[in-house]
């Protein structure tokens, strides 16, 4: 059964093939579409992505070790009715040995220009699914708690004693994707 995660809650994954699903519903009425983006940072022990390609997002849908695959950008939330609109599938057996943590982040594209925050997005959530059985392992609703936030650090998979564990962080930020990229990448970022 699904666990509705609280901040800081840890769960043993005990699985190798999982999916991170991000879902929301399209904007009804006037105004801009809500464009939520799911991203993953594959972080090494220096707290950095070892190379640009270990940042998986709409602009880079596969990690070099083939452990992560992003389904592609949904700019409106219209990809599915009620289901996941963007997914990042994870095969933990393929993760590059340098990677000690995979951090998942959800941001709202151009939130500032469009004057948007999670409080306005309908039925948004992020969840983890067992890819073998399709069963939901954990789910985090992004709604009311984030009335002013434009980015959420959802959680992280981390390696402990050669086992992958998941920790829900659920930290809201009034930042954009570039903020997170700048934390884990020491290069130029083009916005």
């Amino acid at each position, binding site marked *: 059964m699904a666990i509705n995660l609280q901040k800081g809650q840890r769960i043993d994954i005990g699985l190798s093939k999982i999916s991170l699903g991000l879902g929301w519903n399209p904007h009804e009425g006037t105004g801009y579409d809500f464009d939520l983006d799911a991203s993953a940072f594959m972080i090494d022990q220096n707290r950095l992505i070892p190379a640009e390609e270990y940042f998986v997002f709409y*602009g880079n849908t596969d990690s070099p070790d083939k452990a992560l695959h992003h389904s592609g950008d949904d700019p409106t939330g219209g990809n599915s009715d009620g289901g996941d609109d963007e997914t990042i599938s994870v095969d933990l057996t393929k993760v590059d040995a340098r990677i000690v943590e995979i951090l998942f982040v959800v941001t709202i594209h151009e939130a500032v220009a469009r004057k948007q925050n999670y409080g306005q997005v309908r039925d948004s959530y992020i969840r983890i699914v067992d890819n073998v059985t399709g069963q939901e392992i954990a789910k985090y609703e992004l709604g009311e708690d984030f009335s002013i936030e434009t980015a959420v650090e959802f959680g992280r998979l981390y390696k402990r004693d050669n086992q992958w564990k998941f920790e829900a962080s659920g930290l809201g930020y009034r930042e954009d*994707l570039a903020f997170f990229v700048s934390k884990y990448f020491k290069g*130029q*970022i083009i916005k």
Partner: protein
Amino acid sequence: MAINLVKGQTIDLRKNDKGESFDLSSVTIGLGWDVKQKNGGFLGKLFGSGEEEEYDLDAIAFLLNAEGKIANMGRTVQKGNHNISMFEGDVVYFNSMQHPSGNIWLTGDNRTGAGDGDDEQIIVKLNNLSPAYDRILFVVAIYQGKKNHQHFGMVENAFIRAVDRTGKEIARYSLSGDATFNGICSMTFAEVYRKDGSWKFRAIGEPHSTDSFVDILQNYR
């Protein structure tokens, strides 16, 4: 979509607008870089008051015919004991800033990189170009880089980019700050070429160790 040519150095967060088209009726090749503070150590910084080392990057365009050759090398001018060639030919560069057709020109020769944004621009009115021209190749080079012991690995904030008529960036190449650019003094950046009656853009990003575009030009004679 905008093409970002730098691997391992730059992350482009812009959305890839699928099916986005560029207005190639006019293309601007922009070249930008910054002057670099000379690294003089603590005392140098204290007393040297930040002496700047100058880099002179140049943007060059080759107009090629259907055979991939430069048809007109331009006229030769005698200057002192030197023959300086390639005036008013199919090579647009700092000594011959405007093509005879008037449809492609260099806005000016910036020798220091002073100023923000594009320091040099080559503008091409592709739609007005004679059918004799099939392809335009863009090259960037550090003027006298070898003599001055300069290479792209040392230049600060250098980039070359292509922008369409509406100001939309088609491609950008960061040229600086990367050890993989050590010893690299020039680069074949990109080309625009005719395809099925319209113009296409292709990013190339091929680095060369030579500091003289004349060496690169030999492949198109």
